[in-house]
């Protein structure tokens, strides 16, 4: 059991200027971890919201600080923006009596596979995986973003387990397009899990529209958006379709954050 009363944990996320849904899971995981009393203090920071990356270290009292990116993949944010804004020298930064330990993003964790499988099973209870096509949906096309590669990696891991008849990656803006889900699947049941860190416009509106289970904008994401997850299963295009919320809203992500800290310690033995 991890116990770090003399350390601070800072969870960094993207955030949004448009709605509170983007930062919500990061705040939720922080509250969960604070309540467990593992760290002396727990804070969040965001690129698009407050506290910002430039403000957060002023909030911290402890001199031993773990920074965990709540991002699905390594890429522009974890490699460029976060290190630049927090003025990090690399994995380990010593500055003004402080030690800042920059961990791997949560999406790199080996447990992602388990969490995706768990979410897929939860959303389609009693549905036989042997008669189901599972889609892991990523964004795609983002400059210098490895989210598509991360989705492919998870698909390979899940497929290797041989549970589902079919496991595929699909994207919003590049082939294979999630809008063509019925062309890319052969099974009577289809389960779709967004491989995103948070719910928001993509999971509430964009993907449902591409799937054909929603039309036009239902309005503010945080208002009616969540409803799209409450009408499973959807019957269309001759299939039974189950649509899950973003994987990052899974409460077990709090444990994945802890594992990034443990993994850091294992590599950079104190």
């Amino acid at each position, binding site marked *: 059991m991890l116990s770090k009363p003399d350390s601070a944990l800072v969870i960094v996320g993207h955030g949004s200027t448009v709605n*509170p849904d983007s930062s919500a899971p990061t705040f939720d995981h922080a509250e969960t971890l604070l309540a467990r009393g593992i760290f002396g203090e727990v804070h969040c920071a965001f690129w698009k919201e407050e506290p910002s990356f430039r403000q957060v270290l*002023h909030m911290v009292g402890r001199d031993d600080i773990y920074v965990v990116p709540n991002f699905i993949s390594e890429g522009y944010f974890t490699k460029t923006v976060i290190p630049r804004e927090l003025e990090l020298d690399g994995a380990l930064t010593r500055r003004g009596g402080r030690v800042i330990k920059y961990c791997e993003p949560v999406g790199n964790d080996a447990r992602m596979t388990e969490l995706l499988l768990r979410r897929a099973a939860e959303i389609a209870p009693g549905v036989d995986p042997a008669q189901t096509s599972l889609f892991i949906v990523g964004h795609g096309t983002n400059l210098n973003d490895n989210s598509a590669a991360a989705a492919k990696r998870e698909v390979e891991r899940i497929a290797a387990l041989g549970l589902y008849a079919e496991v595929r990656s699909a994207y919003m803006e590049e082939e294979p397009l999630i809008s063509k889900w019925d062309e890319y699947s052969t099974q009577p049941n289809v389960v779709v899990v967004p491989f995103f860190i948070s719910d928001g416009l993509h999971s509430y509106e964009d993907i449902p529209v591409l799937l054909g289970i929603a039309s036009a904008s239902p309005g503010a994401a945080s208002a009616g958006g969540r409803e799209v997850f409450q009408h499973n299963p959807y019957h269309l295009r001759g299939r039974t379709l189950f649509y899950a919320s973003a994987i990052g809203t899974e409460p077990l992500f709090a444990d994945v954050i802890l594992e990034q800290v443990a993994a850091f310690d294992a590599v950079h033995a104190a």
Partner: protein
Amino acid sequence: MSRDVQKALADWLAGGGDRIGEIAIARGPAGWELRHAEDAGRADLTAHAQPEAARHLANLDPAGNFRPLKTAPTLVRGWRLLLADLAAVRRALDYFYPAMTGVWLSHTRGELVPVVLRETLGRQTGMYRVTQKLTDPQARELIDRVCAGCLKHRLWEIATANPSSPAFPAGNLPLLCHEACNLLVAQAREVVKKAERAA
């Protein structure tokens, strides 16, 4: 450089501090009470007892719009937050006015280094690199427009530190801005893009 933000908050309250941004802080029935300063004297407020309630109270303005800038003067009214101890007060304030108690502590310790706008824009990459083309007159207009909707005192200028001192009334915890926020940087991008389209 061990820092104790909670102790700094305790000392500030003991010295007569009772106001941060739009929020009034007072001794409550069993600890501390926070409420919108304009709700002073009201008896019809909805009571909350967990600091996490502050996160949700701070999310939306009275019209239901998201508040990405928590120091915008648009905090909803009609609530009171009853908190048992200073740890809870500190957590609530970190939701209402993220980082502001810590930034203020850094300021009082002489550890807060203002970053001028040119330096902030100069290190941008990706879609925000274009903000380096922002002219001084554009920057002036942008700051006057965007920062007018924020309660923080700006410690920076376009190319120099802001020479004026924070002017917060006695009892008010100063809300300090030591560097342009991403909201302003994003707006700078819009200004540059708009000017390029018009050219």
